């Protein structure tokens, strides 16, 4: 079959002919790198879907190369919303930056027993491998490059809803600007997640929690003309 790979030095994707069936894209790229073209550049690690190194886009959809089995004519491209370093390797500072801005960490977790059920609330969210597939798929970055974004907001929800957390209000404050209200709820982040996480839903939950704490959706302000509360002179 033919695999097309977008290289950073060429406009037109490079076509590689390979004679493989029912193997992962990563297996094919490793074959190409070691036997055919040593300049082909990409990231990899565990080859079992937990390290998050090998996310790319195939025919416009984010996948992990170690979990995707390609078909003839597939086009492999680097992730979006990050500058390309070389071929399929992109600049990766978004992970650190957005998690820092979002304060996506535990403030203080209490000891003592917790029910199995309560821990299951955060089971899926804490499966995140930070592959940034959701970040690449998110259309908000086209208009707001400072958007805290899906992976970091899911991480915030993971800590906010952790039954052991003592204080989570400060986390809610940290995600009001460039955070939960900037999401368009388009849901592009959901199908691309290799771990079955739904960041859009987590963002919706954070919105509800924010509203309970008295925060308002800034987009819901329809201007001064509809202010019936006070007489206008």
């Amino acid at each position, binding site marked *: 079959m033919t695999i097309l790979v977008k290289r950073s030095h060429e406009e037109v994707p490079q076509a590689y002919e390979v004679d493989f069936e029912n193997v992962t894209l990563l297996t094919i790229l490793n074959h190409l790198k070691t036997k055919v073209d*040593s300049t082909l550049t990409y990231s990899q690690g565990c080859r079992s879907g937990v390290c998050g190194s090998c996310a790319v886009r195939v025919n416009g959809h984010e996948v992990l190369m170690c979990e995707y089995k390609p078909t003839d004519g597939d086009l492999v491209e680097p992730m979006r919303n990050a500058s390309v370093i070389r071929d399929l*390797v992109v600049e990766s500072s978004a992970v650190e930056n957005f998690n820092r801005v979002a304060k996506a960490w535990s403030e203080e977790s209490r000891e003592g027993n917790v029910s199995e059920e309560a821990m299951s609330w955060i089971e899926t969210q804490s499966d995140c491998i930070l592959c940034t597939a959701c970040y690449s798929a998110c259309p908000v970055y086209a208009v707001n490059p400072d958007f805290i974004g899906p992976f970091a907001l899911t*991480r915030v929800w993971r800590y906010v809803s952790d039954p052991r957390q003592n204080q989570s209000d400060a986390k809610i404050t940290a995600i009001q600007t460039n955070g939960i209200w900037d999401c368009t709820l388009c849901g592009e982040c959901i199908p691309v997640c290799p771990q079955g996480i739904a960041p859009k839903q987590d963002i919706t939950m954070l919105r509800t929690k924010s509203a309970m704490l008295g925060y308002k959706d800034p987009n819901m302000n329809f201007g001064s003309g509809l202010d019936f509360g006070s007489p206008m002179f």
Partner: protein
Amino acid sequence: MAKVLIIGGGGAGLVSALSAHEAGAQVIVMTKTLPTRSQTSMAQGGMNAVLGGEDSIANHMADTLKSSAGLGNESQIAFLCENGPDAVRWCNTMGLPFSRDASGEIARRRLGGASAPRACYAQDYTGLKLLHTLYDQCLKAGITFMNERFLLNIIVDEETNCALGATCLNILTGEVEEIRADSVILATGGYGALYGKHSTNSVGSTGDGIAAAIRAGARLADLEFIQFHPTALKSSSILISESARGAGGYLVDEQGDRFTDELAARDVVARAIHDEIIKSGGVYLDIRHLGEEFINHELPQERKLARLYEGIDPVSDLIPIKPAAHYSMGGIEVNDECMTSVSGLFAVGECANHKTHGANRLGGNSLLELVVFGRHCGKFAAQYGVKKPSSVVENAQLSKDTNFVHGVMYFTNQIDFYEKQEMLANIFYNNVGLVREEMGLQTVLDAIGKMHKELPLMGPKDKSKICNTNLVEFVEFGNKLELAEIIVISAINRSESRGAHYRGDVPTRNDAMFGAHTITWKEDGALCTDFLL
């Protein structure tokens, strides 16, 4: 304020970073990828700790000591096991989402060689969730990360034998950089990737830190001890956690019959599988009787990987397996403060030999080790930096390494190093694997010697300066080759069988002659070796 440079962003590196930070040091973590992409993410089974019930710390110590086959240090093992409960509680207060039992306590499961259910876990994602929890805490602490830096060498002041920092290749820019510090911690992981497609490890587990340590004058211990995990997927060597057997999974032969105690120590089970494969052609893991609901909840990763890589569903099919290289018991020799034989150079986690695993590691003890010794090491590295701040002395390492990276581009490329790397992996699996014999080991040693000589005829084909992963892989191959020689020489010298080191030609343990650690070091470039207590 002491400046501590930590090389490696896996579990051991991040725990030491938090600990050194807490001790007041300025901390820099340098890693060759991103921290969350480290090998630690692949750990599945759990972290051993005695949390009450009928289990006891004495039992945990006894199990660990027994498994170590005479090479575990009793006081180090006591330190590990006694600090287990506190280590697990510490992870819990940081937010590690442990699975829970019916009473709401942290759930524990039984792994091989353990006399009680003792491994605290988070589904089959214990390593992943530990690593991410630690990373989040490092961001909270404001720790500086220098990602995508490939370690080249430790900078050592020859006159004083003190570590001054490290040199690295900035993979993205292609520049060689120098980072100076008051103390340096190596947390670079093991060397399982030497076995290539016969290893459960990440492709990055190439032993870079251990190779740099011996070049820097540090001593290594017990490199011949490499643990083979009994159950890796047959065609891809991807790990199927021991918890599958802990939960009641069977090992069966081609006829579907059980042939061994599934929960014996890893070396014993792995050898039984090895022998059975030779005898009957294939071995399978059978977890069908555990039921779909249990498999989905406790072993979700296993099910996904078996479907993807073997095209079978463990709920209804047998899983074809083979043993694969999994964990490096050997590593950089350290004292009880985690310092190597080079002053100010520390080592922790899989790259170090804390003498807790000895000849065979117990499942669930490696995550525990990186937390317990990581906290210990970070503190001592910070204290060392305060006591002995490194002076600004001239050192030629940076210019040497800059010249090396420049010069390696002119290697002639008559021989393809990827081909040699694959050959090395295959001859290692066959001759330096589960069963070793002197003849086979000698053959491998000759092959390694030849490859060493041929290195200048190899080299990277890619001449790009920016993000040259071909260059990185070539230097990694050099590190693998450096360690390969030491492993094979150590395996030849240890003319006995003990734990993971099994000599088909000398199948018995010989405490009188070999009840000691294999210590290796370099003097003027020559490899020296000795057995020392």
